[in-house]
């Protein structure tokens, strides 16, 4: 036993190690990334840990390891569940032999981007148990419980963290990891279990699936995972709090007590496993209380279940939440939600603006749209796209440039304003084809990053080639899965692929697919990059432009520089063209001249390329 400061992500990962996990797979996605990343930093003989090409592949690897009897963990952000789900629901139908735990990180309040979706909905649709820790310590313990439960029932089990928990750091007691159990791989040929061929197989599996979920409900109740504390005085308020919301209860109840709440009358049900629905505990609460308050972030899944139980029991009190009450389906919850909803339930009067601070201050803060880093190669690609359109006398509001997930989406912001939309991993290339078929008379461009191309961009490109849909796909290859904090992807340099790994070269994939017009560009060479994109836009059929330069952050960490830049302050007339065109954070305004911040500058030379007074000088290295 030792105590450590851990994040929720790290605690979950250590919980899996303590459970003897053998195979860990995942795809990076904020806020889930830290779990698998923390394992990759450790020396863990006898276990296989990898970033996979996408969440579906990751899940299939983990699931087959679990079919073969080993314990496996698969990690992803909530959007990744969409990708993995096609396989996940099928695997849930078949069940598992070794424990299979799927870690999904939801992002209520959206700290990172993408939809505010609630993974508990996927658990309901696939009849999968889902565990929801409230604290970092619970993330450690419930991950171990999830493996136990998975093997007791023979079902994959979700563990769901939210951003505030995944990224919280706190002191936790942890025990030494267990090595993976010595289990001979199971090879079981049973087409009734492992295929989906025909109605008999599928409907039988569906029945078994429902049976496993019921059994999971019984086990969860026997384990006492959901914590019920009934008050000494019946007839009072019952508070149901799911996952992290329970961590706000002690503070919230204390504040409410100062405004008229009698804590002796309050009963609590802290939900750590929301699906299967905790009917037993909810019935006890309904029997004991006069009204129920349901506190759960995002969708009212528990609230709906409680309303059904209330109807069955003939409960005459109110069920307060989102359907009837002040709580919202949007955003993160906090102490304010606890106190204000208790007040609404009990008609307590709170002082005006108890949780409303001076918000007028914030409206004066300078806007700070996120942009690409100093030295980012994507800057050169956006500038080249914009310049190529100008040279072709095309107006920017006439040319569709679809966007994709990752750092490449930053081209949507000033000063580039290049990219129009963002949907999901790999969507840029499909969207581009739809715009072509809609009858646009202007060229259509799709932009995508390297990791996103490997993840889901390839099928869309193959579709465009098959149907010979005229468009230009620009792959911005910086060699890293950068936005999530620099993970290795299939295209990352060989030296980072580990002793047994190999690099997959996009420049070899594109011609092999039969793309006739294939251009490789250096985004730091603005004129040549512009010329190549301009040419591509005038050619028929599918054109692919591969813009290659390593992520500047990673390159600088390896001690590399693209060049050396200095300013001839006699020539600079502070026209600010370099700032207007590049928006580079390394350029600052000094006394009568611009200044280059040498700590930030990577020497990409794009500022020198746009200066029309030769005031910025460049000596390239790369």
């Amino acid at each position: 036993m030792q105590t450590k400061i851990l994040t929720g992500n790290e605690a979950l990962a250590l919980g899996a190690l303590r459970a003897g996990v053998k195979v860990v797979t995942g795809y990076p996605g904020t806020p889930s990334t830290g779990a698998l990343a923390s394992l990759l930093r450790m020396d863990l003989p006898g276990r296989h840990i990898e970033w996979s090409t996408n969440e579906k592949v990751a899940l299939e690897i983990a699931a087959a390891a679990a079919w073969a009897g080993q314990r496996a963990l698969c990690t992803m952000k909530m959007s990744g569940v969409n990708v993995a789900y096609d396989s996940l629901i099928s695997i849930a139908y078949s069940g598992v032999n070794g424990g299979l735990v799927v870690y999904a990180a939801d992002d209520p309040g959206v700290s990172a981007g993408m939809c505010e979706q609630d993974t508990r909905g996927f658990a309901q649709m696939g009849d999968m148990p889902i565990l929801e820790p409230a604290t970092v310590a619970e993330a450690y313990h419930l991950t171990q419980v999830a493996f136990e439960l998975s093997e007791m029932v023979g079902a994959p089990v979700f563990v769901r963290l939210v951003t505030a928990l995944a990224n919280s750091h706190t002191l936790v007691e942890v025990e030494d990891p267990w090595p993976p159990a010595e289990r001979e791989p199971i090879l079981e040929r049973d087409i009734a279990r492992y295929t989906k061929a025909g109605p008999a197989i599928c409907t039988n599996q569906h029945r078994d699936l429902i049976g496993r979920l019921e059994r999971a409900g019984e086990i969860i109740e026997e384990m006492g995972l959901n914590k019920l504390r009934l008050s000494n005085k019946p007839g009072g308020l019952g508070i149901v709090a799911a996952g992290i919301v329970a961590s706000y209860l002690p503070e919230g109840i204390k504040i409410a007590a100062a405004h008229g709440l009698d804590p002796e009358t309050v009963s609590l049900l802290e939900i750590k496993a929301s699906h299967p629905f905790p009917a037993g505990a909810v019935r006890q609460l309904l029997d004991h209380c006069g009204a129920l308050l349901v506190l759960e972030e995002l969708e009212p899944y528990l609230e709906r279940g409680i309303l059904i139980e209330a109807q069955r029991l003939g409960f005459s009190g109110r069920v307060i939440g989102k359907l009837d009450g002040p709580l919202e389906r949007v955003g993160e919850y906090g102490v304010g939600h606890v106190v204000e909803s208790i007040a609404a339930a009990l008609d307590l009067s709170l002082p005006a603006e108890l949780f409303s601070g001076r918000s007028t201050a914030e409206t004066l803060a300078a806007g700070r749209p996120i942009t690409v880093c100093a030295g980012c190669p994507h800057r050169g690609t956006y500038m080249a796209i914009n310049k190529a359109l100008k040279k072709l006398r095309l107006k920017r509001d006439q040319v569709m440039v679809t966007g994709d997930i990752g750092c490449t989406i930053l081209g949507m912001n000033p000063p580039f304003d290049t990219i129009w939309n963002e949907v999901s991993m790999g969507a840029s290339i499909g969207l581009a084809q739809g715009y072509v078929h809609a009858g646009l008379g202007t060229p259509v461009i799709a932009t995508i990053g390297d990791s996103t191309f490997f993840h889901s961009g390839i099928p869309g490109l193959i579709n465009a080639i098959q149907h010979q849909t005229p468009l230009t796909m620009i792959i911005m290859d910086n060699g890293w899965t950068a936005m999530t904090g620099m993970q290795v992807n299939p295209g990352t340099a060989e030296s980072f692929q580990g002793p047994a790994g190999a690099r997959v070269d996009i420049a070899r994939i594109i011609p092999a697919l039969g793309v006739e017009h294939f251009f490789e560009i250096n985004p730091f060479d603005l004129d040549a990059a512009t010329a190549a994109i301009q040419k591509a836009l005038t050619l028929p059929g599918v054109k692919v432009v591969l813009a290659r330069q390593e992520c500047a952050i990673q390159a600088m960490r390896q001690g590399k520089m693209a060049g050396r830049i200095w300013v001839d302050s006699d020539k600079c007339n502070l026209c600010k063209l370099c700032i207007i065109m590049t928006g580079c954070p390394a350029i600052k305004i000094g006394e009568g001249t611009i200044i280059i911040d040498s700590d930030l500058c990577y020497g990409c030379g794009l500022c020198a390329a746009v200066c029309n007074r030769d005031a910025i000088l460049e000596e390239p290295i790369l």
Partner: protein
Amino acid sequence: MNYDIYLVGVGGQGVLTIAELITRAAVAAGIPANYYPTKGMAQRGGFVKAQVRLGRAVVGPRIPEKGADLAIAMEQSEALKAVRYLKLGGDFVLLGRIWQPTAVMLGKAPYPGREAVKEHIRAAGAAVHFLDPGRVPLLDGRPVPYNVYVLGAAVGKTPLGQVLNPAAVAELIAVRWKRGVEANRLAFQAGLEANKG
């Protein structure tokens, strides 16, 4: 004693390091602590915040509006984003560094003045502890780390110095980095003594 700290700044300024050091110092002193950083999407140059909650065994990661005993800002404009989290009678340590967004540099967008920022903090009922970045000491011609200076000032000027033992924080800083021990020691000490005399 419960003590909640809301920190804001721009990515790359070391805001999260201040929060991490406070958390480590608290944990070393046996005080329960939860530290929740929010980085958003930006590697550098974007808005960054951190919430540190000290003293409660079970605590949610988020500080409610009007709940923070102390706010710390490393950038003059970003400071405004912490104001609504300040408790009446709280403390605000404000480093007056200016990190201009591009639109401000180009003269296309306004940037809040120092007095306006201070005025908003006072109007929220908190005490302003303003730190002039020009008074951060130099070592070998370069300013010592601003974030460690700001942490020193927070320990020296607010009740954080009673929650945490200043000597223990100094000791933690001395072992946190392999390089720049002297610069960090100087930064923390200068922060502790900032605005005196």
